């Protein structure tokens, strides 16, 4: 079991899912309440990473954000290095890769809040931002937990993007899925087995949390 790779991956997943709360909430808010007629295009764009192969994302991060592109040169002048082969590079790739897994549960739960409550809040003098903070967010806790957990789990299991842009640097970009791949390729099955089992258990626990918070109360306690 490669603990360095394990903690690196947990750090990556925790950072990405936390950032996605900050980035995802405004996007989900806009997607829920906007009446723009072309909104469906943005919805499609946000959902893209669900269907796009990770290799496409990896390719874009390498080439479109590489040192041959204007965007890549701008990043390089800012930080002194390219995005590929760095922890930040993995964070950027993972943010894109896991975006829909945060935004969609957020948007679904925002949309499920009864509009009458929003009107009541507005009529009591709250601004839209106050209403959002005091009414929508508390009523959307389940969706927020779901989005956080799903993006965490999805980042934990990320492989293709990391294989393409990571460069397999121990402690920097060698994530747990890459470690498992290396172990399997060198026929080191017992080590691969241990690591795979840890990942399996964590993924199961995270998904159990997701389904647990989303369960209908009466399933567990019919007398309520």
């Amino acid at each position, binding site marked *: 079991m490669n603990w360095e790779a394990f903690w690196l991956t947990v750090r990556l997943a925790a950072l990405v899912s936390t950032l996605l709360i900050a980035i995802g909430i405004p996007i989900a808010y806009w997607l829920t309440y906007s009446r723009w007629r072309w909104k469906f295009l943005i919805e499609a764009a946000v959902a893209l990473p669900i269907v796009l192969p990770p290799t496409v994302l990896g390719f874009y991060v*390498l*080439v479109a954000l*590489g*040192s*041959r592109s204007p965007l*890549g040169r701008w990043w390089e002048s800012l930080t*002194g*290095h*390219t995005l*590929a*082969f760095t922890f930040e590079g993995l964070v950027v790739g993972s943010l894109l890769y896991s975006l829909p897994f945060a935004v969609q549960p957020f948007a679904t739960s925002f949309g499920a809040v009864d509009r009458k409550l929003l009107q009541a809040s507005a009529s009591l003098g709250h601004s839209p931002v106050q209403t959002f903070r005091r009414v929508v967010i508390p009523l959307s806790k389940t969706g927020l937990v779901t989005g956080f957990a799903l993006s965490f789990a999805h980042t934990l299991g990320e492989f293709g993007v990391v*294989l393409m*842009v990571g*460069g*397999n*640097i121990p402690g920097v970009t060698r994530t747990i899925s890459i470690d498992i791949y*290396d172990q*399997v*390729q*060198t*026929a080191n099955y017992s080590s691969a087995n241990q690591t795979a089992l840890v990942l399996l258990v964590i993924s199961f626990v995270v998904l159990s949390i997701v389904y647990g918070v989303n369960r209908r109360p009466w399933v567990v306690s019919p007398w309520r």
Partner: protein
Amino acid sequence: MTLLSKLTAFLILCAANAAAQEITVAAAADMSAALPQLVDAYTKKTGQTVKLSFGASGNLTNQIRNGAPFDVFFSADEDYPQQLIAEGFGSKDTLYGYAVGRLVLWVPNDSPLDLSKLGIKALLDPSVKKMSVANPATAPYGRAAAAALRHFGIYDQISSRLVVGENVSQAAQFIESGNAQAGLIALSHALAPAMKDKGRYWTVPLDAYPTLNQAAVVLAKSKQQDAARKFLNFLRTPEATALLTSYGFSLPLEKPANGGRMK
């Protein structure tokens, strides 16, 4: 028999026929430019179609152990085919050392480094923020690169800047795309049309790393032993060796008349 069922039967026969004829070759990533050309020439000559699958030699070896349906295996390192033979996955009499691979230090055209003057020491220049190599665990070129860096005594100075490609093609792609500033890759990639005009290279002297003896073997589980052996024999023809040479492969010093070990 209706026309439709005749047609269906015909198509099934065609498909079965094609499947029986085609052979599948697993090849080291350093052959990714040369081998398709060899196959083109071979197919034109004999009608035999060949499917190609590239990867790090170690990865392919592991896939073969786990039942990958390949007929021939081209390795960048003779150890892997020998392991497979010892484990009963390769036919010993078919082992053929077809070439010797060369390791080169490659930089893109826009690099300020003067390779002819600096040689391997170019890697110590601060402009080299990342340098790419293949994964030493699975790729012979990765092991050669690590050995060469140790040979010149600069491994420890370089190690924090190393990025590791899954195979030597990915190591080449990391520099070609500008994400790494230098790399130790296969000469066959440096000479391939995709990279030829994009950079310069310095050939790492042969005494700096264990010789990359490339070897091919027909796999024991192949159902097309004859077709596989014929393809392997094609590599001994002057036409094939000329093409390999044009991609920077040198020929093994001593060529056994029929199969056998090299060196």
